[in-house]
């Protein structure tokens, strides 16, 4: 997808003024949060599981080459083919080439954030291949010509009325007078449309929540069963996944799966958890005859061993988005990136460069809730701060901001000067308030007084008052 993180501030202004979006965010913000809390409360070993899952990922990442080779060996043994893609362009080219080899005209897709990351749909469509998203949310996003606004709930920014309108616009085959005001009506209609596509598709493309080195399996979790129809009905199944998805054993996959749904949707387990190992075997009654895995790097191996390595533990559950006050205020699209919210604020600069996404790691109050709920214990605020440090080192912050910061730091390192300046500033601010208790418009501080008054100081600094008090006591 086209990255628009560099117009973050404009995106935010639009998001905050979008009444429908704000309504949609209100509706759902609390749902996931409440459900996760309930699911966690029912699992006393939740925090112990987090430690275990973290250990699994840290171990795997420190031997990633070995586990990727082991995984590839097992996939090959089971009759599949693994393709390594260094960049997004490489991955797109590999998938297109496979589609051509297999003579594909229609491709169905299960939900995959990696395919969003590499902009796969547009690339295939440009070559005349019809691509149909089959996850309901992704399908809606596709017919609207949008991108997902949440990594596990792509249409969290919409209300059901918006979706009914889109269905009427696109599904011309149905009677205009049909009823579409209930969620069930929308689901039934989408099912009718998608069922035909499932049966006609030449290739099914899915992502993977996990890859298992021990067995060469790919794992997807879904709630609609569309992933299974996508991976089993067409002649060929292509998995697009990033390299950090691999775990050593089935047991390890289980540890992570126990955390994934609970953290994301608050379910104990998703409706479907599908393990796919290779193409159809001779004894299998059905299934795809070809099985390919495209493994994407796209900057991830550079993150290994560095400050941002912790981010590679991310299992894309969405908990950090659901609990983020900033995400809750502006929604996902404002981030202008495939990955929004706290995880996106760390991931996006790694993908597109800090110069093109500098607002994302800055637009956080560092409230720490993301880190608190992250099932993989990723220190998201620390990683955002690490991006801020790089941004600062590169001289990216606006000149005025840098000068103010430097001037403040200069004084803060010189207590005598600092107190002298404070003793000038405080009476000035008190005078500006003119006894009203607060300042409605602060010269040089309009960013504050835009949305709130500026409280007036009491009148003198504490240090001055304290010194006066000490003097009078000595007398």
């Amino acid at each position, binding site marked *: 997808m086209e990255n628009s993180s560099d117009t973050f*501030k404009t995106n*935010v202004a639009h998001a*905050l003024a979008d009444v429908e979006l704000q309504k949609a965010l209100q509706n759902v913000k609390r749902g996931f949060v409440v459900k996760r809390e309930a699911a966690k409360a029912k699992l006393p070993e939740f925090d112990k599981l987090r430690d275990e899952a973290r250990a699994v990922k840290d171990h795997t990442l420190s031997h990633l080459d070995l586990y990727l080779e082991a995984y590839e060996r097992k996939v090959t043994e089971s009759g599949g083919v693994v393709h390594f893609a260094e960049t997004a362009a490489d991955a797109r080219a590999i998938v297109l080439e496979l589609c051509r080899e297999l003579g594909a005209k229609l491709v169905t897709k299960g939900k995959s954030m990696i395919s969003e990351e590499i902009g796969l749909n547009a690339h295939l469509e440009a070559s005349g291949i019809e691509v149909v998203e089959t996850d309901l949310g992704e399908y809606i996003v596709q017919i609207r010509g949008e991108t997902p606004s949440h990594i596990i709930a792509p249409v969290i920014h919409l209300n059901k009325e918006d979706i009914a309108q889109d269905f009427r616009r696109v599904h011309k085959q149905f009677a205009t007078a049909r009823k579409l005001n209930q969620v069930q009506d929308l689901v039934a209609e989408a099912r009718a449309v998608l069922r035909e596509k499932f049966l006609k598709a030449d290739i099914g493309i899915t992502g993977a929540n996990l890859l298992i080195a021990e067995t060469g399996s790919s794992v997807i979790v879904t709630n609609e069963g569309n992933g299974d129809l996508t991976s089993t009905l067409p002649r060929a199944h292509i998995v697009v996944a990033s390299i950090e998805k691999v775990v050593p054993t089935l047991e390890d996959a289980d540890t992570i799966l126990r955390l994934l749904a609970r953290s994301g949707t608050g379910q104990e387990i998703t409706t479907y958890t599908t393990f796919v190992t290779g193409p159809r075997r001779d004894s299998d009654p059905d299934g795809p005859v070809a099985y390919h895995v495209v493994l994407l790097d796209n900057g991830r191996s550079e993150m290994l061993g560095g400050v941002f390595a912790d981010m590679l533990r991310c299992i894309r559950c969405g908990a950090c988005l659901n609990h983020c*006050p*900033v995400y*809750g*205020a502006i929604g996902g699209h404002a981030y202008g990136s495939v990955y929004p919210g706290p995880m996106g604020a760390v991931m996006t600069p790694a993908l597109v460069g800090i110069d093109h996404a500098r607002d994302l790691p*800055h*637009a*956080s*109050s*560092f*409230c*720490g*809730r993301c*880190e*608190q709920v992250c099932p993989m214990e990723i220190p998201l605020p620390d990683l955002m*701060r690490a991006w*801020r*440090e*790089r*941004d*600062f*080192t590169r001289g990216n*912050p606006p000149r005025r*901001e840098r000068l103010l*910061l430097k001037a*403040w*730091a200069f*004084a*803060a*390192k010189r*207590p005598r000067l*600092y107190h002298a300046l*404070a003793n000038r500033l*405080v009476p000035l601010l008190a005078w500006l308030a003119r*006894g*009203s*208790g*607060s300042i*409605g418009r602060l010269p040089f*501080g309009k*960013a*504050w007084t*835009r*949305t*709130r*008054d*500026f*409280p*007036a*100081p*009491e009148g*003198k*600094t*504490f*240090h001055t*008052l*304290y*010194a006066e008090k000490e003097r009078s006591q000595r007398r």
Partner: protein
Amino acid sequence: MTSAPEPSKQGPLVGLLVTCLVDLFRPNVAFAAIKLLEAGGARVEVPRAQTCCGQPAYNSGDRADAVSIARQVVQTFERFDYVVAPSGSCAGMVKVHYPRLLADDPDFADRAEALASKTFELTSFLVDVLGLTHVDASYRGSVTYHDSCSSLRELQVRDAPRRLLASVDGLTLVELAESEVCCGFGGTFSVKYPDISGAILDAKLRNILATGASCVLAGDLGCLMHIAGRLARERAGIEARHVAEVLAGMTEVPAIAAPRQMR
């Protein structure tokens, strides 16, 4: 040997980390903190060589300045038995972040660790270290309490302010819905992204208004200036105060951002 000294002469020596916001805007909070610490049996000193904990630099990515300021704070405060701040944010900076900032500094790594281990947020120090269970104060009316993110998540301070408030004569505490959610202040975030900061504050304000309390308390002046600034803008008729002022019975100073004629 003369007779036994007064308890306050042998109590632990506390260095008060005033915090830059309290120094500039709300000296009453520091005076209230001193009163409470002394009531708990501590001796309090206020080193004059203090300015700020360095968070504006640290969170803006200016690590070099953050490191220099951290060293300065370590040097100024390491001689005390304890360091106490009327702020979860500033205490958290010293307790959680200084050891990381100075970890690679051979002269300061151990000293930062030592300082971190004896630094506390005011209410938790009063309750958990000094064992204070009761304050001698009264306040007429119902209040609600806003947990700052750093107190709640960085320092796990939740019960201490509530336990002390429960001992204030005449005070009723009404709990805030979604008390674990940020108010949208976030230091420099509040001026770098004022619209997002304001939108997050809107949600917090709705919850504050829903309590029906006449006063919102918190342990961090940053959150309070942000919340009080909006209460003033909207003439919401609700006061905002630092929790120390109420616990010390020092509420004669007008509330934060409140018109002076209310005095």
